[in-house]
């Protein structure tokens, strides 16, 4: 009995950490897809970039953890603006196929670029000394880094949600996601709003990729390997929704961790089957709008 409880706590803990990483990476994708209807399969590239920046800065240049994270967020935010303005913008409102092709092409290029710049091996993530080891909560010890991940993830989520609810910028985002044409007609500069939102979402993804480098391995195939997960979180959560992907990430994170632990022969199979069932029942996602 105590074993089952312990296992449950473990699964819950690690699942929650995984969920945080998934959410931080995917929320930007949900909002931008919901706002502009743009199929961005290359979103994972930004998370990967964030992961490489953090591991490189810390590993090769000894940059402190916090600074490395900040660097990751800034680099990805900036890079995303360039991509959005140059490549994505001409395709808004166009054929789905064009968007799929373009973004898949970028993913392929990212695989090669990452191999060229950092080599084919996985980048090891060494958490800073003050976050390694275990911390004691009650009778158990929990990995300190993962605990930090959960706490900082939660804090970021809180800041994000508050920001969206309380600020003018957040209001504009919610308006544009809800009804783009209406937002334009009340004078919101949607083109600039989109670039900013895209930068914010990509920056968050970079941050998530960096924070979660030991959960989602940082290697050149990152964007391809994890594409399904990010898309599942967004589709199950509901495009354009901000809270939806959080619930979806929790579901996926905990279920994935649980099944891999309890039924490793099935692996991620259950997640995919679960996704299909949920999307069959609610094609717009759990929190999507009809």
């Amino acid at each position, binding site marked *: 009995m105590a074993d089952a409880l312990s296992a449950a706590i473990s699964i819950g803990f690690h699942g929650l950490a995984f969920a945080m990483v998934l959410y931080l990476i995917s929320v930007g994708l949900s909002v931008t897809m919901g706002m502009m209807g743009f199929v961005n399969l290359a979103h994972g590239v930004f998370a990967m970039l964030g992961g490489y920046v953090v591991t490189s800065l810390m590993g090769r240049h000894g940059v402190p953890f916090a600074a490395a994270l900040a660097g990751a967020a800034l680099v990805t935010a900036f890079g995303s603006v360039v991509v959005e303005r140059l490549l994505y913008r001409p395709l808004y409102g166009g054929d789905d196929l064009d968007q799929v092709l373009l973004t898949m092409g970028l993913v392929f290029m990212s695989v*090669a670029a990452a191999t060229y710049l950092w080599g084919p091996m996985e980048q090891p993530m060494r958490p800073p000394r003050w976050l390694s080891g275990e911390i004691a909560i009650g009778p158990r010890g929990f990995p300190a880094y993962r605990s930090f991940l959960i706490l900082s993830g939660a804090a970021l989520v809180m800041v994000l949600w508050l920001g969206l609810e309380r600020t003018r910028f957040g209001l504009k985002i919610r308006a544009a996601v809800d009804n783009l044409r209406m937002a334009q007609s009340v004078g919101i500069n949607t083109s600039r709003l989109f670039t900013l939102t895209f930068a914010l979402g990509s920056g968050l993804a970079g941050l998530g990729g960096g924070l979660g480098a030991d959960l989602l391995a940082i290697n050149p195939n990152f964007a391809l390997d994890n594409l399904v997960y990010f898309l599942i979180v967004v589709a199950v959560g509901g495009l354009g929704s901000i809270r939806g992907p959080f619930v979806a990430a929790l579901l996926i994170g905990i279920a994935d961790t649980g099944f891999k632990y309890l039924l490793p022969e099935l692996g991620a199979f259950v997640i995919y089957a679960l996704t299909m069932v949920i999307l069959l029942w609610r094609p717009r996602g759990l929190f999507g709008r009809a």
Partner: protein
Amino acid sequence: MATEGLVRAGLRPESGAVAVFARRHRFHPLEALPWAAAIAAFALFPSYLPLGAQILATILFALSADLVLGYAGIVTLGHAAFFGTGAYTAGILAAHGWGEPISGLIAAALAAALVGLISGLVVLRTTGLTLLMQTLVVATLLHEAANKASALTGGDDGLQGMVVWPIFGLFRFDLFGRTAYVYCLVVLFLGWWTARQIAHSPFGRSLTGIRENVLRMHAIGAPVMRRRLVIYTFAAGLAGTAGALVAQTTQFVGLGFLGLERSGTVLIMLIIGGVGRLYGAFIGVPLYMIAQDRFSTIEPVYWYFWIGLLMVLVVVIARGGIFALIDRLRR
């Protein structure tokens, strides 16, 4: 296209429109070109026949993708699911004592069609991103299943020990690839013939309607879901046949047969030639595969860089592929 050429040739549209329209399905001499080229290649490039066989099988795969993507307008990232299902079916049969190729091929086609039917029932209820997502999930699900069922599929290492018997007991699969080439050519021909029939039938025309404006299709009383399901299932069977061809002629099946890369590259091969024209596959696939063969000495990773760049450039510059470029040049 052919009709515009005839109109420009001086046929008065008012009197000839119906006749021209009714003749679209007739064979055009140019359509014999790919087959002549394939036969010529058999004679002229005897050392490239194994590659040639793979190209022919992949053309069949791309053709099946064209039916779904180009004709019905269903954007899918999981078409490899059917290719892989066919490949593994033929492969598992051959690795477990039943190496008869033709029945293996048929079994593969049926298995893939079944997967197409079942997944289509789920996937085709949706549109847009959700549809795209679902196709990816189906393919990933099958990939994961094949990975875990390693006792049957060989898992990560791939399926080993395939033994394919001679066709009709007479034609052995030889090292030079002659049997493989002719085998693939015949199957491709049959597949192409069927696909062409469908494309020119009223059913095929209604698919283009679904692609161009599904709202309007509903408004003229068309059973949209049923039509999409039929073509999806058929195309899945065709893709499975292509997968079985590759499996039987290379005596190997790996997880990559089901993967996102394979789904993605068949799209790019089709785009190069042009979607929705039935012949895009015949242009895009050989171009891609021959180029890949030429560049095979380079690190495979850098190949993906150029392919990625090509995809980006195609979207930015040359939308519609080579066929569309030809159209534009003609004007």
